[in-house]
Each structure stands twice: as C-alpha cells, then as structure tokens.
C-alpha cells in the first residue's frame, strides 16, 4: 500500500484537487517503507520495520494559506482534509511573500529507484549484517553498526495542473569497529540507491584495518598541519558550504557569501582555482528528484567554477524581488538534506599517491561533532576520529591522538594542494583532498 505507482498517486491527487473550492490548491502525497538493523558489541541490539503514507493539502484564498493533512484515503477522509485546509486558510493571516501556484512544468528523469534495493527483506538485512559481524569476530574486534533500507515515493499536484512524481530507494550502512582494549577504532559509512554497490563485508574490512592500525596513538603538538582528508572527512566539512549559497541571507548581509560594504560575493574568486562545485539530480552516482516541493524543476547547476562563485540559490519570492530567475538548490542526494547533492570534481591521484608526496602531514579518516562557531566566516569546530595518522617523508609513520580543529571550509578550500579521485560519500560526491595549514587547536584523549 505504501508505495504507489505514478498512476495511482495521480488518481488520488486528481480526486483531492476535484474537491477543492479555494482560489488555488496544492496537494502532496508521500509514502515510505523502511527497515533497519542496529548492532553493537557484535550482536543485534534493535531492529524494526515501519510503513507510512500521508497526504497534505494547502488551500489558498488570495494570500491566505491553510494546510491540513490526513493518513486515511477513503473519499470521505479526502473531502474532510480539503475542507479543513480551506477553513484554516480563511482564518490565516495574509502571507505577503506567497507566490502563486506554478503552471505545469517538464521534468527530467532520474534513476532514483532500483528494484533490487526495494526488494530487501529482513533476511537479506540479517545476511548483510552477518557479513559485517563475520569480519569483526574473525579478528576478535568489536563492531557496532547500522543498516537501513527504504523505498518511498512522493508526488505533488496543484490546481493549475502541475504534477510531479518520484520514487526512490536507499540503503545506508555504517560501522564502527574497535579493538577489545578500546585503544583503536575504525569507521566506514556510505549510502547508495542501488544495493548492488554496497558490500558490507568489504567496508567492514576497512574499518577493521583502521581499528588495528590506529591502536597505540601518540600525542603530537596541536598547530597548523598539512592534512590529507579522506572523502568522508571532506564531506563532513564541505557539506556546511551549501547553506551559504542562499542569495537572500547573502543579500541581507548575514552569511559568508555577504560582501563587505553590501551585496554578495557572486562573481568573486572565493576558493582556490582547483575547486568547482555543482549539483546534478540526474547524476547516476547520486540521483535525486528533479523538482522541489513547489514543483520548480531542478537541473544541473554550477555554483562554483575554478574557485569563482557562479550562482546563488534564489527562492521564487526572492528571485521576483531581485528580478532574476528562481534557482533551487535541489533535492540533493536522497532527500532535501543540508549539503546533500554537492559534487566536487577531483583529480586522478590515489590516496596512496597523495601520501607518498607529503613531506610532513596528518591523515584524517573523518571528523566528528562539527558545529558552527562563527557564521560570518563559517568557522567550524570539531574533532578527528577513527583513524588519525602522522605522515613523514611520504609514509604513514604512526597513529596520533585525535585533535580538535577550528577551521573554516572557506579557508580550507583556499589552501588546496591536491585533489584525488571523486567518490560518493553519503550524500555528496567528493575527492580526498590535501590541504595546507589546517588548524588543530587542542588534543583529545578520545578513541
């Protein structure tokens, strides 16, 4: 029941619009089936399945908007939810920023749904987790992990005839493997639309190797270091950039994209020329819906080219105010997540090659607990975790204690020495990066 086809969704939405008597009406329908296993101490700790579907109706009179929703789908319930939205709209204050409903749009196709992922059942999940546990048990290590798969759809329709539909699948896996003494820890995580790309055993082997090789970490002085950030560490940092592309905050003088003296940094060389950033909902490695929640088509967009800011994100309202075309940031990977969907083209170097050309530096597996310290410079703080190593003379010398950093991804992307090969890391496609003068401010005893 939870996953409706395009035709089934369209039929329900048409029926709902048919009941509407307001000036404009916008209807959204979504459904999802999810299943997961969580494990720790080499055994399953929790596991579950859930199924949801609901319908949301926004009725509009002039600039007054009311929204109501329901999770029952008989005719009486559908009529009730439309009536309820219309009653709320009549009571609502005017929204001066309300934008009229869009006319029908054309959308590109995106390969977000994969049948084999949709077919995952509890036994398949148990088998995939079994592959991970086999790795930790074979090496007398301890694993804690999480495997989650979902299939879902969403559809929207408005009273002007706009209709959009997308169904998608996702499988996400992460595991932390630690040695029994608690002196070493490793981690891997990734997400895919296609379960065929996920090998939980192979990923777990990487985490197990890190758990073994990170044991016995030595303390080195905090300070500025050349760092090699693995793709996970890069995605932890650069995901924060996405929020700054909002034109309105930049125009209002309250983002790192705001310019001293007024205006935005559009057209400025804000990053090293090796850095380009774009989003593309049809990218086969990171597909996402090709429309936003208002029905605006989402297309491939270049935000930064050779370090120069090329585009900012404009909502329909802000675009009208500024006399430009609306430009959505996009659905971003699987969902509308912050930073999701960013793509940074890389180079050809492997991680090993990047290490071999480093005289003195620190290899970072991932970061943890990153929070904004100062939004005007995008200064972030956080810590390294699950495998931090000292490099000298082109070789990893020994594991080091974790550091706290205070660094801005804007500054970091000005200090780029080298980019490796771009890969998917969660909701983002990024290369490993070699960065000079990365600021570590203190040591942590955490393992």
């Amino acid at each position: 029941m939870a996953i409706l086809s395009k035709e089934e969704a369209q039929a329900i939405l048409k029926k709902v619009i048919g009941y509407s008597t307001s000036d404009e009406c916008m209807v959204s329908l979504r459904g999802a089936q999810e299943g997961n296993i969580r494990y720790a101490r080499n055994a399953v700790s929790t596991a579950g399945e859930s199924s949801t579907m609901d319908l949301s109706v926004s009725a509009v009179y002039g600039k007054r908007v009311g929204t109501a929703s329901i999770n029952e789908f008989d005719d009486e319930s559908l009529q009730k939810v439309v009536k309820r939205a219309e009653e709320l709209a009549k009571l609502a204050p005017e929204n001066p920023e309300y934008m009229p409903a869009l006319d029908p749009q054309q959308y590109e196709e995106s390969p977000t749904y994969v049948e084999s992922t949709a077919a995952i059942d509890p036994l398949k999940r148990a088998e995939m987790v079994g592959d991970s546990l086999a790795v930790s048990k074979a090496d007398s290590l301890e694993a804690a992990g999480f495997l989650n798969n979902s299939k879902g759809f969403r559809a929207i329709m408005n009273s002007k005839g706009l209709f959009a539909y997308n169904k998608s699948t996702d499988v996400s896996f992460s595991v932390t493997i630690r040695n029994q003494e608690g002196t070493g820890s490793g981690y891997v995580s990734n997400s895919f639309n296609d379960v065929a790309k996920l090998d939980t055993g192979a990923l777990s082997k990487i985490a197990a190797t890190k758990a073994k090789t990170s044991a016995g970490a030595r303390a080195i002085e905090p300070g500025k270091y050349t760092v090699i950030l693995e793709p996970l560490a890069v995605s932890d940092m650069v995901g924060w950039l996405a929020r700054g592309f909002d034109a309105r905050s930049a125009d209002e003088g309250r983002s790192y994209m705001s310019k001293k003296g007024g205006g935005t940094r559009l057209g400025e060389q804000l990053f090293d020329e090796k850095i380009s950033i774009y989003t593309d909902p049809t990218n086969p490695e990171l597909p996402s819906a090709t429309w936003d929640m208002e029905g605006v088509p989402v297309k491939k967009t270049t935000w930064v080219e050779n370090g120069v800011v090329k585009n900012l994100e404009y909502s329909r309202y802000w675009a009208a105010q500024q006399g430009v075309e609306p430009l959505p940031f996009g659905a971003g990977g699987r969902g509308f997540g912050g930073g999701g969907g960013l793509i940074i083209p890389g180079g050809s170097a492997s991680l090993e090659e990047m290490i071999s050309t480093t005289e003195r530096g620190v290899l970072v597996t991932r970061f943890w607990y990153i929070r904004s310290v100062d939004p005007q410079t995008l200064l972030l703080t956080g810590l390294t975790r699950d495998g931090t190593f000292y490099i000298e003379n082109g070789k990893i010398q020994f594991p080091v204690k974790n550091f706290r950093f205070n660094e801005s991804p804007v500054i970091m992307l000005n200090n780029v020495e080298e980019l490796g090969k771009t890969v998917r890391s969660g909701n983002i496609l990024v290369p490993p990066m070699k960065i000079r003068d990365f600021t570590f401010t203190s040591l942590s005893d955490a393992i």
Partner: protein
Amino acid sequence: MKRKDFLYYSALGMGSLLLPNSSLFARPIDPLEALNERIDVATKKELADVALNAAKAKGATYADVRIGRYLNQYVFTREKRVQGISNTESYGVGIRVIADGCWGFAASHRVTKDDIAQTAALAVAVAKANAKLQTEPVKLAPQEGYGEVSWKAPIAVNTFEVPIKDKVDLLMQVNDTAMQNGANFVNSMIAAVNEQKYFASTEGSYIDQDIHRIYPNFNVTRVDRQSGKFQTRNALSSPMGMGYEYLQPRPEDKVAGLVTRYKGRYDMLGDVREAAQNVAEKIKAKSVEPGKYDVVLDPSHLWLTIHESVGHPTELDRVLGYEANYAGTSFLTLDKWKSGNFNFGNEKVNIVADKTQVGSLGAVGYDDEGVKCKQWDLIKNGILVNYQAIRDQVHILGGTESNGCCYSQGWDDVQFQRMPNVSLMPGKEKLSVDDMIKDVERGIYIVGNGSFSIDQQRYNFQFGGQLFYEIKDGKVVGMLNDVAYQSNTQEFWNSCAAICDESDYRLGGSFNDGKGQPSQSSAVSHGSATTRFTGVNVINTARNI
C-alpha cells in the same frame, strides 16, 4: 517532537538561523479537532491486549505496546511576517517484543485490531530473523505491573487550547520590539508538543499519560554593512515541560543583573528588548585576548556544558558500546565506577539524575517501558556513583531495578535509554552572583548557550555563548567578542571553585537531543546555579575570509 520535523519546520520558518532542510512535510490538522479525537482508555486497553496476545501467540516471551497520539504546533515568524503555522499530528502503534531471546519491533499507522495483530506478528518475525546473530539473550530487570494507572503533566494552560492568533500577536510584538530597538532582522517562534501515550506490557501495566512541552525562542541580528560583520543574540528562554503559562511572565521570576534572566516564567517581550540592545553593544565589543581565565557560567549557559560533559558520559548504553557507531562511547568506563573513588570533579560537585522535577522537560510518571520514575545520584561529592540504565542493562551493574529512563520519540520508533534531567546541585552556603564575581581577578562571565562540540568519549569540549562580559579585579568592565573555551571534562569539574546558592538555581534544556539509529530526539532539562571554574583555556574565534 522529532528532530527532523523540528529542523524541517525550523528551516521553513527560521531560514536565517541556517538550519538544514529535511525531507519531511507536515501532517497539519486543526488542534482542537485533534483534542476531540482522543480515544478513551477502555478502547486503548482493548487494542493493547490484542497486541500483547498476538505477540505471545506468535512466541514472544515479553511484549509491550505503545499507542500514541503526538501533537506538535509550530508558529514561525520573521520581522512583520508569519512564515508558517503548522499543527501536526501523528497517531499509531508500536510493538516491541522479545522472541528467541532477541528484540524485535514493528509499528503501524493503522490502529485496527487486525493491523495491530499483524504488526505484532511482524515484530516477532523481525526478532526471530535476528536471533541467529544474537550472542546473549536479552535479560530484563524484574518489573512489577501497576495495573491501570495514569499521569498528567501539571500544566496551568494547555498551549493547544490557546488561539493561534494570541501566539501570532505575541510574536509580532516581539519582532516589532526588536526592530524598534535597533535590530536589522528578527526571527521568532513558539513550538509546542503534546504526547498522549498509552503503554501496556505483558508485565501487567496499562499506563495512560499526557505530557506537554513548550519552546519559545527568537534570534535578533544586527548587521554592520560597512565592516561586513554581523552579530546575533538568541532568547534566554528555556524549553520547558510546561503549558502556555510559561509565556505569562511574573515579576518574581525575573533575575536582575547585567542582563535579565528567567526562572519559572518567561517575559519574551522584555528579553527581546534587551537582546536588541545587546547586539548593538556586541557588534562594537572588543575581541578577546586568548589565554587562561576564570569563567563564571550562568545557568542559561551551564546547562549545555552539563548536558554534554556529564549527561552523555553517564549514559550506560554509551559506556557499554551500544552507541559506538553514532553518539559515541564514554570515558566513564565501568572500572572507574567500580573503584568507588573516581574523582569526576572536586567535592563541591554533586550531580543528580531526575525524571520527576515539576516543569522540567524530562518529567513523566512512568518511562516508555512502564517503570515508575524517580531521582538518583550520578556524582556524589565529586565521585562517580551511578549511571543511567534501563531494564535490559541494569543487570550489568549488578542491579535489579531500572532507573526508569527509557523513551521513544514516537509510536513508530523503538524505545531505548535516554537521558533524564541531569542537574548540578546548588552550593550549600549563601553566595550571590555579585559576590562570586567580586572574587575573580581575570575572568569572563558567560550568559546563554552558543556553539558546542565534544569528542565521542566526552573528554575534550569547546563551548561558545550568547553574551560574554570581561571581569577584571572583581568588576565587570565591558563586553567581549569571539570567545570560546576549551577544556577536558575531568579537569574542568575539578576546577569548580564556587557554586551560587539555591536562590540562583534555574533550569535550561534541550528540546531536541539526538541519539540512536535511526536518530531519535528527546527533550531534557538541566538545572544549576551560577558556577565559577578557574584557569580555563579561552580561544579567540575571529577569522578573515
């Protein structure tokens, strides 16, 4: 309130706070209609029995069922505009079982007898599928059945019965006050939660509870276009386990000082007026000189340091490794607790866990596995004496009684160990904030919580704040900018020099504390009086881009 819902509505309503979007959209309803839709207890008991019987028939050795209706209301505004009003409702059933020694869970939004029986069977199937990966069977602490009981939060005014117009009018007045007092931008919001939840288990409990929470907040921004700088200040409110009475101020709840702070009731208009003045001063304030300072921490700030450095490392599931892949583990390992002499802090530091404090976010009658709530010690005279544990963990501590701190954010998420209120006890001797500051030679007085980050075992942390005042030779000499302090948990709590008395004790809290996979949100309060810590490392966070 689920964190992803909150972020979604926050993103809709509070764009300038730069919160991320989320994939969820609303299930808004008319709140009054929702209240009318309450299901009577007899029907819930009948439905619950269907779940318990179906689970047992399929081979479960234990089962519990939660039938929940969760109401949320959000009003978001900026300057002269209402950005969003949403009433959302979520209703359904979650069933947790033990079969073949392993946990299984399933949930459904369809709450009919047939659907419930099928969901119970699915939960048992999930448990059996995973049992082959299990090394040790689940062991539950004994728990008496309470029969049919109920608990209601002692609120004075039900937020969901206050007309939306009153809330919109208040927020518009808040925004107008900010703009009149020199702010360039202002966002404001009120969020409210009502959890109507029914719990039943094969131990023989049938528990009906009604829980309320409220969270007013604002963010005032002042921009200096010439320098390209901007400064913000958030509300000094706290989310509370209260009704709308929290927003009906009383003079006796105002704490006078450099800036007004609030106890049981909150004056949103008074606070925003001061906030607009604060940002004007903040944008001209001098940048801090890094180094060692004594920090004097107001409860509106200290709650978050307690939350991160005491609340999280004393969670037993973290200590045991159950959160290793997400929230992290803990430096407070079992050997430190067993030694009986691990000095977490000095002898001034007494920290209690509590699920009963009136008005707090964590207060309920019974937890989400049917255990009656209570208070217990975590840190006694500086020594680690206990953890936070639930039914399937407490045997590891050699105990036979759960602490009663199990929680799930909704009917469709499985319940697990969550932080109770964790609070620092006030000093026993009379001490005011003014007297505390008189003893400080070189220090910083910090009000309000800001940026926060701590490592996965809770050793190394860094905190910012909302307002920073420089103290020189016992006197406040002006405001500072770009302040953050870094420390190590054990060193920090051993540097506790003085704690103000009970008259300064106030609650702060988190409306959306995240833990678990899939991630779940819970709300938790932390009480403290103003406290001084000596020789803390302060860094300067200013940068140029």
